[in-house]
């Protein structure tokens, strides 16, 4: 390999934090004009190596070269000068400014009088957008843009600052299918212009589509770097998980005994979304909710849990109408919600594992109004054990935990309430495939114990493994409810679960796509 064509050449990178060896002699080489996937479970070292590339951390040993130039100063500023741009999950745009103002923030065009020249900025921005064939109005307010458009804006902003290495960390998590297509189209154009792209994602279907090569990390070591053609899905999973049994498709689908209706929705409507949802979840049943971003899945969960107002319709629990005006009513009725946004809605990050774990059941771990610290410790210990949560101690703040373990704390917090009805909104968001399988196993186990579960997920294979039925939402309405069995193809032998799952996924995706009429995307946001 000609070293000059390497955009990024990291060699022998080691890094430790306290007693934890985060990276051991890791090599990462990215060519100019390639999309390179970086894969690995939680704690594999992905974010550490990216932070070193981005100048946030200084490596203990090893060298970093960017386009042949050795980096000798580790700071975000130096990395930016070297042409590296991180596109974060949390968007760094300012919502109250327009697109052009954001693109040229801190390097505003000036008039002869030294005043900010917004017209000039808009012209220059629209040149960039045209060059990259991105259809966004530079005068639009960022607050009015959808998640996909914001991400494209962010990328264009980086390119306008002469970025030659783009790092995208889980770029597709908040995007709808069509926004993902637009993102991929842009990435392919940038690749053609010689930009090197590092693509981090937990979604292997996407990686298989977009990347040319992949580097897989596990436990701080590089396992392999190979072209995607040499990395079929099962092999990727094997490398990531480190053992053969890890894939979701390997999970046995057990049908639990479905009992009487436990949770019934009748024409449930919120302010704008959802609209007229009628759905019944029985004891022992997991009902999935599929649909694109903005289809009203999370809005439905919020209405059911009493966070957003119920405008019309009725919610029945065990046949009795339930008045749920606030989350406390829902919790008292035996319902819990694992919310979509872990850091915003699920956790109080600076507080301890124990505080977070018992927040939803404070009254149950207290004698009248005095918190019983022993009960808190015991309740926490029980969940830490059940869910195998890795935390230094119960007293450590949740912010010190990895993303997957944080998610487990949110789940444990609601398991402690011993609910009958569980609303799960993206319960496996941002956690590695091993933990994912654990969470799904837990969901099945809960169903086996007679709970009613409503599970929202953007990952179709997850829904297919976990659910008995799958409801598809589109534009706030329930468009169809599918039995899981109906998605299986009879021609694929049961002995080949991998192909079986893939086929079912294609089938489900096709049904979801059916509900989208051309041009309906714009109104979805």
């Amino acid at each position, binding site marked *: 390999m000609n070293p000059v064509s390497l955009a990024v050449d990291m060699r022998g990178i080691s890094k430790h934090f306290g007693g934890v060896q985060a990276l051991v002699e890791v090599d990462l080489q990215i060519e100019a004009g390639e999309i390179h996937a970086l894969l690995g479970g939680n704690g594999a070292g992905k974010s550490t190596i990216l932070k070193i590339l981005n100048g946030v951390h200084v490596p203990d040993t090893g060298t970093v070269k960017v386009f042949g130039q050795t980096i000798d100063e580790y700071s975000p500023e130096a990395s930016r000068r070297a042409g590296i741009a991180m596109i974060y999950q949390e968007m760094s745009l300012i919502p109250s400014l327009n697109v052009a103002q954001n693109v040229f923030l801190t390097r505003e065009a000036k008039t002869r009088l030294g005043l900010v020249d917004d017209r000039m900025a808009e012209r220059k921005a629209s040149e960039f957008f045209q060059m990259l064939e991105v259809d966004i109005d530079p005068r639009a307010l960022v607050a009015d843009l959808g998640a996909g458009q914001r991400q494209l804006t962010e990328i264009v902003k980086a390119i306008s600052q002469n970025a030659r290495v783009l790092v995208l960390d889980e770029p597709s998590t908040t995007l709808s299918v069509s926004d993902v297509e637009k993102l991929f189209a842009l990435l392919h154009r940038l690749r053609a212009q010689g930009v090197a792209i590092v693509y981090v994602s937990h979604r292997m279907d996407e990686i298989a589509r977009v990347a040319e090569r992949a580097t897989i990390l596990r436990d701080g070591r590089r396992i392999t770097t190979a072209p995607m053609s040499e990395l079929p899905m099962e092999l990727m999973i094997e490398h990531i998980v480190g053992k053969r049994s890890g894939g979701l498709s390997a999970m046995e689908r057990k049908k639990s005994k479905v009992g009487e209706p436990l949770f019934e929705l009748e024409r449930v409507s919120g302010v704008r979304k959802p609209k007229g949802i009628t759905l019944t979840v029985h004891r022992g049943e997991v009902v999935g909710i599929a649909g694109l971003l903005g289809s009203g899945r999370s809005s439905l969960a919020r209405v059911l849990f009493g966070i957003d107002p119920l405008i019309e319709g009725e919610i029945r629990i065990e046949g009795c109408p339930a008045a749920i005006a*606030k989350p*406390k009513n829902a919790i008292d009725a035996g319902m819990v919600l694992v919310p979509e946004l872990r850091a915003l809605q699920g956790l*109080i990050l*600076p*507080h*301890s594992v124990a505080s977070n774990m018992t927040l939803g059941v404070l009254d149950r771990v207290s004698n009248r109004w005095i918190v019983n610290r022993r009960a808190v410790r015991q309740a926490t210990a029980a969940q830490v054990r059940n869910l195998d949560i890795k935390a230094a*101690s119960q007293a450590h703040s949740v912010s010190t935990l990895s993303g997957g373990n944080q998610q487990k704390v949110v789940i444990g917090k609601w398991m402690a309430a011993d609910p009958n009805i569980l609303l799960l909104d993206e319960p496996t968001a941002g956690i590695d495939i091993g933990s994912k399988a654990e969470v799904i196993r837990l969901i099945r186990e809960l169903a086996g114990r007679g709970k009613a579960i409503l599970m929202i997920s953007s990952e179709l294979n997850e829904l297919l493994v976990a659910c008995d039925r799958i409801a598809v939402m589109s534009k706030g309405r329930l468009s169809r409810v599918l039995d899981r069995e109906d998605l299986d193809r009879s021609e694929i032998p049961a002995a080949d679960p991998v192909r079986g799952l893939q086929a079912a996924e294609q089938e489900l995706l096709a049904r979801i796509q059916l509900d989208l009429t051309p041009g309906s995307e714009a109104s979805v946001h």
Partner: protein
Amino acid sequence: MSTRNSPGTPVWHPRSLMANWRQNIIYIGFVIIFVFFAVTLNDKGFLNPNNLLNIVRQTAMIAVMAIAMTFVLSSGEIDLSVGAVAGLTSVTVAMAIDAGGMAFGICAGIATGIAVGVFNGILTTRVGIPSFLTTLAMMGIAKGVAMWISDTAAVPIINPTYSWLFGGGSVGKIPVLLFWMLLLGAAGHFFLKRSTFGRRVLATGGNETAARYSGIDTRSVKFRVLIVSSMAAALAGMLYAGRLHSGRFQLGEGDELSVIAAAVLGGTSLFGGYGTVIGTIVGALMIGLINNGLILMGLEFSQQLIARGGIIILAVALSQKRN
């Protein structure tokens, strides 16, 4: 990321005391300043028990208000009206004692606190005006009402029992004010650390959305916290009135700054989610200590203001976590 230990859970690791020295800077600072004054001002009577008890007398009202302010700040709100409410209450209590005796006076004081708290609470949690603005406006209103009903004159209190009980008296050499401070401090510490209410206050300030998703009625938490704060301010006003045998609108003027400074010095977050009542009391005592020492040093008032401001900035700057 935060390394400070989280509310309600004991410290497990022996090393965390060292790691969290910034969090404990208030205690270290208190000792350093105390020793410094004890050495340099020994010949001016700093260590004289009467002087030390005087510091307690001058600090008690600030401490009482700061204990409640710890809850307010922990919940992510602020109460700027405490000083003015203390002044107003001193006037209403004095007038009520004059009209109907001690019991009536105490009731009037409590009623003043509740009325202001409900007003602040409704505007903040129901109308949705930020507490910064609600209580800023209340500061002016309370002061205006106090000036108006008292005709800007001092209202004398001629009731030895009241004066003894609320601030003037002492048991042996120990001032009654010290008992008030310790009683409320113990109650405040227990409530913040051990009660479900305290947990809900900290959760609301730590992440209001997550608290709401956990079934906590965050508006009710904030409402109650603002009432607690006004009640504490009313009590401080009653203590001022008892100690000075009169109610005046100027009492407590400007105290809100010392109160907030005491809480923040003690380690309570201005942005919510973390608070410590013990730290707050030590913070209040430290401010009293500094005032006393600077006076004994013979500094002019202008110099005292500058020195006090400098010391507070230094202490808060040292206690900030570095990123």
